[in-house]
């Protein structure tokens, strides 16, 4: 894999929220490049803009100004449909609260992004099972999310994030809802996936988690700390 290929590039990105008369600068001129194959951690105090940054990188949100390039394409020029396609093909999300669909089984949850990608049902099942095996969740895949432990849920969520083989995996405090031991297992999983060549960005509060990553980005008041 070409390690030096730039996957994501932010140029002077601003994100403002209007709270009545006040303007909150969640991101205040943020520039950033992430290369293929990197394992990056983003760390910073609460309210510093980490989640806002992740949402913009993940094409879930648009910046107020500045530009965002994903694999060389300017996402500010894209409409909702094109953005959903990018999210489907190029991004895999892992959330603090797992965000599994409660009425679907684990297997169906993992199949969902493939459904939106238009993969045939039979192929979908095989791919989802492979992804679940990769995160060490070969069993209990026909159970509902509520019947699983936090660590298992997060594994399922990671399987769902990698099942489309996206160019970028974004994890916003993936260990935040887990105990330390389980969190470590999940972090090991990310390292393993990174060793296989996947590009991963992890938001965390935890210095220990962050220090294990090859690149650390510190955020404060919507800016990158140097």
């Amino acid at each position, binding site marked *: 894999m070409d390690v030096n290929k730039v996957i994501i590039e932010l140029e002077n990105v601003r994100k403002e929220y209007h709270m009545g008369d006040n303007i909150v600068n969640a991101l205040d001129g943020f520039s950033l490049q992430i290369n293929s194959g990197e394992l990056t951690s983003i760390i910073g105090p609460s309210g510093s803009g980490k989640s806002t940054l992740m*949402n913009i990188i*993940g094409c*879930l*949100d648009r910046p107020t100004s500045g530009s965002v390039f994903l694999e060389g394409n300017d996402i500010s020029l894209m409409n*909702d*449909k094109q953005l*959903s*396609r*990018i*999210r*489907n*093909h190029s*991004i895999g*999300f892992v*959330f603090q609260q797992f*965000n*599994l*669909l*409660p*009425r679907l089984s684990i297997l169906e949850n993992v199949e*969902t*992004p493939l*459904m*939106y*990608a*238009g993969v045939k*049902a039979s192929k979908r099942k095989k791919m989802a099972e492979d992804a679940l095996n990769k995160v060490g969740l070969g069993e209990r895949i026909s159970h509902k999310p509520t019947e699983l432990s936090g660590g298992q849920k997060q594994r399922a969520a990671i399987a*769902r994030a990698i099942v*489309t083989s996206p160019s970028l995996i974004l994890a916003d405090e993936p260990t935040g809802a887990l105990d330390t031991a389980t969190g470590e297992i999940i972090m090991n999983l990310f390292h393993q996936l990174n060793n296989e060549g996947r590009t991963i960005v992890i938001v965390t509060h935890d210095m220990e988690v962050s220090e294990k990553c090859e690149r650390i980005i510190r955020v404060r008041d919507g800016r990158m700390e140097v």
Partner: protein
Amino acid sequence: MFGENIRLALKNLITNKMRTLLSLLGIMIGVSSVILITTLGSSAALNIKKEIASSGMDLIMIYGGWGNARSREIFHPGLGEELAESLPGVIDSTPNLTSSVLAKSRSKEASFSLGCISPSYRNVFNIKMAAGRFISQRDSKEKYPGVVLGNKTARSLFPAGGAVGSPIKLIVGKTAYQFTVLGVMKKKDSNMGAEFDNVILMDLNYYKSRIVKVDIIDSFFLKAADPEAAADAKLEIKEYLSSKTSEKDAFWVESPSSISEMFSKVTGTLNIVLACIAGISLLVGGIGIMNIMLVSVTERTREIGIRKALGAPPSAIRGQFLTESAVLTLIGGVVGVLLGIGLGKAATSIMSWSFSLVPAACVLSLGFSAVIGIFFGLYPAVRASKLDPIEALSRE
């Protein structure tokens, strides 16, 4: 994807059984009343048709115009047979020459209306006998001196019963004629001016050869081939008779208000009721569906956010909710149809009608239900598809 959506829709509807049922009430009531009404309508039509034959809705009457001497070309005794032979819409006929007569049994005497008719009279009016028999073709040919009595006539002349076979004297002019009572008719409501209870019926053939020589008849009764086609037969007859005379108003042809008119009146009213019920239930049902779908979208905002994060395009979200509301209303439609059939069966059996379902109404109702689902589900579905993913994900 579509199959997936249907599976998802069913899953969601099953999780909220009670709510699903309640939200479907409007559609269910609407569809079932449509089915019930069409069923009742078609069952009623079926039964009316059955009763028509016996109630004389297939009768046509011909009589002369006022103030004109009846033309010999038209009102000759054989006119009925002539019409029945030449017009396909007419299957039977009887002449009808009425006068009044003094009748004497052994013990009683009274005045009655005397009808001179042909043996076909029985078939034309669907006469049922209380006792004995009607005048036969053979009686007519052999000029047998027999008469048939109306129910009241028999009662007043033979209060002790035993009319059939008894001798009876009829006084016409100053001459008394001796007859035998062949039979007594059952009670019957009068029809188109023809009266059945207070009469004495005699074969016209006998009357004109033995009592009074007549060559012009008052009126004729004809039986139409099909009660629904009585109006058409009437026109045929008019046309036929018009070709025989240049005189205006030389004759009148009448039939009971045509069946098709009556049917269209009945079905017209039914259709209005139907349209009202369908319209109201459609609106109420549709608003119910829209409401429940909006609730569903709000409840599942987070799910929508997750799906969007996973790459669901707006069209997929829209499709998911549209499918759900269409499946919902279709279920309501199916339940409504079944309910309507059940109610229709019950109602027709209470009225002891035969049951007749309108398949087109069932199919249309089902199609309509799905259309309502899509129409009223559109707004909630579009709203879901336009949700902002970040906001949706931050919702609990």
